[in-house]
């Protein structure tokens, strides 16, 4: 299980033409099995906790029900039962409120410039898992704020940055053991960030940043070209390139495409790109817009394309991001009202800042109902990751990822005091 993804990656790199040498590496006639054999047994995940019970005055299940005075039992890292109307037995951990552990699809936990391969703009096959440092304190900090699962993406300096990886914020210290295998995600960006470091070839180009794209239209061109070339490569194998298979999977809807697009023009570009792919007969992207701050300006195009939106953190003045986008505080409420799936994100804010829980509160300030806000930080992101059977709600059979609150969730006067991940008490409220 753990090694299939590795073998998959190995196969892709094996089929890759030489990336650097002038000398052409001889390719075999057919793909061989990788040379190396795993020399060690797969790493065993964290030993699940023994039976654990906790009692909550209120359990916000996320399925529409609020259970009062419920006793939750955890076994083997899963919730084995949730029974309301019980009083707290002696010595059992008691809390005021329980929600599912929150999920942040845009926690920005990458290792900055070490996480994006900038030698070319289009790198669909490179997996950010190679650069994730699980010893980074940010994982623990996010866990303390009640975020139990994050999606780590490459830094958005490339047009197409590569594959994201979904991880829980606590668990085995090896990425392959900890990664969650839900829907595969392809990450990219539209806007000014991918072209930010590039420049035209004035004078003597001293580095490989003298290249396209240098403008938004160049960025869009790269996207379109990548998809066109991937489709062409299927019919003309000599045109194959690393990542073509990933792009074809994206077109087939088997790999979710997550595009960062802050401003309304960039959101539009992303949706039009998808629609063009449909018109050309190449496929239909499963599109998620990240940091879609200005989605409130043209919700219609998102509705007609069934695009999912991840919103960035709310700010005091409304301006967010480097492109000066304006996030109205009622955006979540407006989009949910239009029937769209909306997820909230906190961009990695730690305790003391405006955490993901606070963002849910701010969305409520903008008009979102409590249930909708809860969904936006639990069940909606879980469905984007394709992990709805395991994460995002509190009931029997789900992973025991729980956020324990000392008051009403998302209120500014309460906070996460305890966290369980896979049934392990990662943050103890006692």
């Amino acid at each position: 299980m753990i090694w299939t993804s590795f073998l998959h990656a190995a196969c892709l790199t094996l089929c890759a033409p030489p990336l650097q040498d002038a000398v052409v590496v001889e390719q075999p006639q057919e793909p061989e099995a990788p040379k190396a054999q795993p020399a060690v047994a797969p790493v065993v995940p964290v030993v699940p906790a023994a039976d654990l019970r906790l009692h909550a005055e209120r359990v916000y299940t996320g399925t529409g029900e609020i259970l009062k005075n419920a006793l939750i039992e955890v076994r083997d890292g899963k919730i084995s039962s949730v029974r309301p109307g019980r009083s707290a037995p002696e010595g059992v951990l008691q809390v005021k409120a329980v929600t599912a552990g929150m999920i942040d699809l845009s926690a920005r936990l990458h290792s900055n410039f070490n996480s994006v391969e900038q030698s070319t703009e289009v790198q669909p096959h490179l997996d950010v898992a190679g650069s994730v440092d699980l010893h980074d304190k940010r994982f623990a900090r996010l866990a303390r704020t009640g975020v139990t699962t994050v999606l780590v993406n490459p830094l958005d300096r490339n047009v197409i940055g590569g594959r994201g990886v979904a991880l829980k914020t606590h668990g085995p210290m090896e990425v392959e053991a900890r990664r969650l295998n839900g829907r595969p995600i392809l990450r990219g960006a539209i806007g000014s960030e991918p072209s930010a470091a590039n420049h035209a070839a004035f004078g003597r180009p001293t580095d490989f940043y003298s290249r396209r794209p240098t403008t938004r239209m160049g960025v869009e061109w790269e996207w379109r070209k990548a998809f066109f070339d991937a489709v062409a490569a299927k019919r003309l194998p000599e045109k194959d390139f690393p990542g073509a298979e990933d792009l074809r999977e994206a077109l087939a809807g088997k790999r979710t495409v997550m595009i960062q697009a802050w401003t309304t023009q960039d959101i539009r570009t992303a949706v039009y790109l998808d629609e063009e792919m449909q018109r050309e007969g190449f496929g239909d992207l499963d599109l998620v817009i990240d940091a879609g701050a200005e989605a409130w300006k043209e919700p219609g195009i998102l509705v007609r394309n069934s695009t999912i939106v991840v919103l960035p953190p709310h700010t005091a003045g409304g301006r967010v991001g480097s492109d000066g986008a304006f996030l109205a505080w009622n955006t979540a409420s407006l989009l949910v009202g239009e029937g769209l799936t909306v997820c909230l994100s906190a961009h990695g804010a730690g305790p003391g800042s405006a955490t993901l829980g606070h963002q849910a509160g701010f969305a409520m300030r903008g008009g979102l109902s409590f249930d909708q806000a809860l969904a936006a930080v639990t069940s909606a992101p879980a469905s984007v990751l394709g992990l709805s059977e395991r994460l995002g709600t509190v009931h029997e059979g789900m992973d025991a990822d729980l956020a324990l609150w000392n008051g009403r969730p998302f209120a500014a006067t309460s906070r996460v005091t305890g966290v369980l991940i896979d049934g392990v008490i990662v943050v103890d409220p006692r």
Partner: protein
Amino acid sequence: MIQQSTRLLQRIAQTHLALTLGLLGCSFLLSAQAEAGEKYAVRAGIVHTLAGEAIPNGVIVIEGGRITAVGSADDVKIPWDAEVLDVPHLEAYPGFVEAHTSSGMDRPNESVSVAPFLNVRDSIDPVAFYFEDCLRSGITTVNVQQGNACIIGAVGMVVKPHGMTVEEMLVRPRAGLKISAAPKSGMSRATQAQTLRGAFTGLRLHLEDLVQQKRTGNDFSRREALYQGRDLAGERGKGRAMMSKGWTVEGLELVPRGEVDEKQEPLLDLVEGRVPAWIYCGAPMDVRLALEIASDNGFLERTILVLDDSCWKAADLIAEAGVSVVLDSTLVRTEMDPKTEEEEEVFIPGVFKDKGIPFALSSRNSTTESLWFQAAMCVAHGFTRAEALAAVTTTPANILGLEGEVGCLCPGAAGNVLLTSGDPLSVTSFVEYVVIDGNLVYDRSVDIRTQHLLEGVVPEGTESHAEEPEVEEDTRKKAGDEGGSR
């Protein structure tokens, strides 16, 4: 439902016209100063006086800008000639008090390191967005001081965030002198400390020099004062013995106060305990320097420390000195133990509460980390509501020397009232109205900037007509040849 007199409506119309001509988005600002004897009353669903029990169906009567009565609607009679704000669906709270800020000025810092002769009144910008935002977050009293990048900074003042001129905004002038114990950029701690000590030594030498001149019959200082255009009449022409708790200069009564160099006078006021000192500390080690300077020069009793987040480590020192503090940074500090590599979180207000040190919170921006948000965070970390609200009302009022005047709804206090749609510490409630000195100065229903922030008002004529763009026939065919098939 708001009961408004025609007079008020007319005034609103006039002010709207005047203001919208020059100022974008300030149209929620209404009416001018309270005139003596003018009466205003607020009838709210619940009145929280913060000086006792909450009063359901409460009434507050304000006359001439001061609260004259607070009680339940049954007990308090509203004068027949009072304007009434009738809002039974809202809750009334005392306006919040911002204990220390450097916002609202055109620039928070002056490059001259030792400049006690400056005054923030020359720098405050009445139309700065900061003051508007104060009203939106329910702050009705603001202590404006120079920024932290100084050694000895300007004289500050307490203002209300409403008024077209600084004079209109004034609540209390000469509200303290700003000092920074943290090194100004480019300075080392040693240089900072030396310059600080040197400033007070300089004062002492100046005063001794004045006394010496008087004793020898030299009238240089008098000529200098006249040359500087200073007033030597009345009280200013008289000398007074130095009254300080620290060092003293014998014979100062020989020197008319008006002849003290105007550059040194604010320091003399400080040393004589006439104004408070606001001393910024950027690190725990600065606290020791701050307390030392204050006690060596006799103004420890009037010292308030403005603290960065790491200064909680010096809490014992602060408790021993018995001074109050203003928390000027994030409320949670995370530090990694280098040996165990574990991270430790400290909730800073909790440290000060446990040590019995009076502390006030200060807002960091207008919405996501305003005073109400910080107070709410205190509750999340175990404070009672009363303790949390005190940190933004009564405690800063005490620190500013305005106890009983602001931060509570009691007879005799200024008529500063917030009307909120619910618990002000709740993320879903809003400040709907603000009354300052018995005047309605903020009405959220006409606050366009807040509307824009909350609802993303799209300018007219820019509605989306986003449809699928037209594609030409031949382009489609070409792509189909090269690319893959369905």
